[in-house]
């Protein structure tokens, strides 16, 4: 359990500066928090709330809607087995059953050593390699029982560490620049990533839509 460190905060502030309204950065900031801790800690949600100008409850209420945002700690490797229609037709459920047996846990559970969390997921758009699995959102497929076992071994030994960073690390390429379309001082967002002030959460008047 930890708040955002200085590095994560700097990344977060640069991201906030990219959006016309701060709240738009809420989900990208949740990803930054997960990249640091592997899950979305209550402390991080408090900080995100301050950074984007909403309450911590609103961050939690938003984050809980999304499958990729984890409000509880999970394993270093999130093994997501797809069982949707294309994978079902290629043996996705049989693969999930094997995965449960191999890892000794049911879908939704984490191994005692904290290495693996197993999930049954909806279509991840890799139906040409069904049945497919994502580990920390990196694709593997088509897999049978044997290739699944090898995958688990390689994940455990660290042989795949270069391809599969630990859970939470999503995009390893940082945006290089801020907004450049309008020169600074134009009344528009500044060109370079600047620190957005951390303000106490404030409720804004709801914008009229029509």
């Amino acid at each position: 359990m930890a708040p955002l460190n200085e590095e994560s905060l700097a990344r977060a502030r640069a991201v906030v500066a990219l959006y016309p309204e701060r709240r738009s950065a809420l989900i990208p900031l949740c990803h930054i928090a997960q990249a640091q801790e592997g899950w979305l800690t209550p402390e991080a949600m408090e900080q995100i709330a301050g950074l984007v100008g909403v309450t911590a409850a609103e961050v939690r209420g938003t984050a809980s809607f999304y499958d990729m945002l984890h409000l509880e700690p999970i394993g270093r490797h999130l093994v997501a087995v797809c069982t949707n229609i294309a994978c079902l037709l290629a043996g996705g459920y049989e693969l999930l059953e094997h995965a449960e047996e191999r890892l000794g846990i049911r879908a939704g559970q984490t191994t005692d050593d904290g290495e693996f969390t197993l999930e049954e997921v909806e279509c991840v758009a890799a139906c040409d390699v069904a049945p497919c699995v994502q580990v920390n959102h990196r694709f593997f497929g088509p897999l049978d029982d044997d290739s699944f076992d090898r995958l688990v071994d390689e994940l455990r030994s660290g042989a795949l560490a270069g391809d599969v960073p630990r859970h939470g690390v999503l995009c390893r390429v940082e945006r290089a620049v801020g907004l450049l379309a309008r020169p600074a001082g134009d009344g528009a967002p500044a060109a370079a990533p600047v620190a957005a002030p951390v303000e106490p959460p404030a409720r804004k008047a709801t914008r009229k839509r029509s």
Partner: protein
Amino acid sequence: MITDAAAIITARLSAHPDSHTLERYLATGGYEGLRRALATAPETLREEVNKASLLGRGGAGFPAGRKWSMLRQADVTYLVVNGDESEPATFKDHLLIERDPHQVIEGTLIAAYALGVEQAFIFCRGEFALGLERLTQACNEAYALGAIGHDIFGSGFSVDLVIHPGAGAYICGEETALLESLEGKRGFPRIKPPYFPAAVGLYGAPTVVNNIETVSNIPWITLNGGDAFAALGQGSSTGTRLFALSGRVERPGWFEVEMSKTTFRDLIYAPAFGGGVKDGKELKALIPGGVSAPWFGPEHVDLGLDQDAVGKAGSMLGSGSIVVMDETTCAVRAAWRIARFFWRESCGQCTPCREGSGWIEKILRRLEDGGGRESDLDLLMDACDNISPGVHWPPEQTTICVLGPSIPSAVASGIRMFRDEFLLHVKEGGCPIRGAR
């Protein structure tokens, strides 16, 4: 008739394993479309897209040119590219994002210029980690090249682009839910009217939302003209389309083909494409356009891959994903898995969708597992009728978005096409097919 694959959007990625790099992109005509566009009047570009009759490739098939023409004039407008591809069995945008990210970005920039938009977003599905990395890398490179930012290529036009990661929710593919998500909220589709983000979109400002495959076509249209695009295909289905083929076929994969000219039979059986039903089995049914689409039987395989033709036959080309079921496929189980998907992904705002999906999922599971009753078939159709009165195609709408009316497609198709198989589940106390597989 089997036509050769006419490659517009997959030409580069088919020929080059390094198609995602800037080096390869520039060596194969990359950003020439943008340069040409910047030397052309925006209204001329919009007219070319109109002439191309480019239909939106996200699922609804709405003409892109018309969508553009609806953008309300305002001081601030936005362009959002929808890369939240989540319709089960659809994997074309995933391919385009990972393998040709610069093409996506160039199409986005041309669209922004044609629309006079100064800030664009590409909403990329969060589960596409590699796609996010490649898009971000390409975005950085395009900024460094001077293709994005202030006064791009010395044209006087300025635009910013932000790659926005999603966080896992099927419903965010619905354009108003996507905008809510981009505003940092739960992905709840907005109440209509207003019907179009072009009137009221991101932060209430006029916004065009285009699909990844749609914008990927824009550089080619800019360089070759709308007429050249419209010369491919026939009727309202112009150009090429990237189809995703999966399920019980020998060679699942993606195939870009000229619209209308290729049939479902070609795509499934031709050696150049699917290579036939797996293990030489008989075709039982196919889903012509994502799991929201009603199923087709073998009698429909000679239909062309044409939006109007498929619509007239009672289904939709939708997201361009075709799923093949063979004689080893249990119709009840297939319908159950699709119902389970909708039940898990319903955002929960509307009662017919939230409750109906759960009812249908539970009844189908009971049939599959041996606890079914003969009356369950009527009960299922009644639940479908509560979600979408009449259970016909195109469906009646009782909910805020089209997720709800999509739920009956699979289960009603299953019952109508394979009634005896459903009844056999009741009679035999469980699945008669799964055991045989």
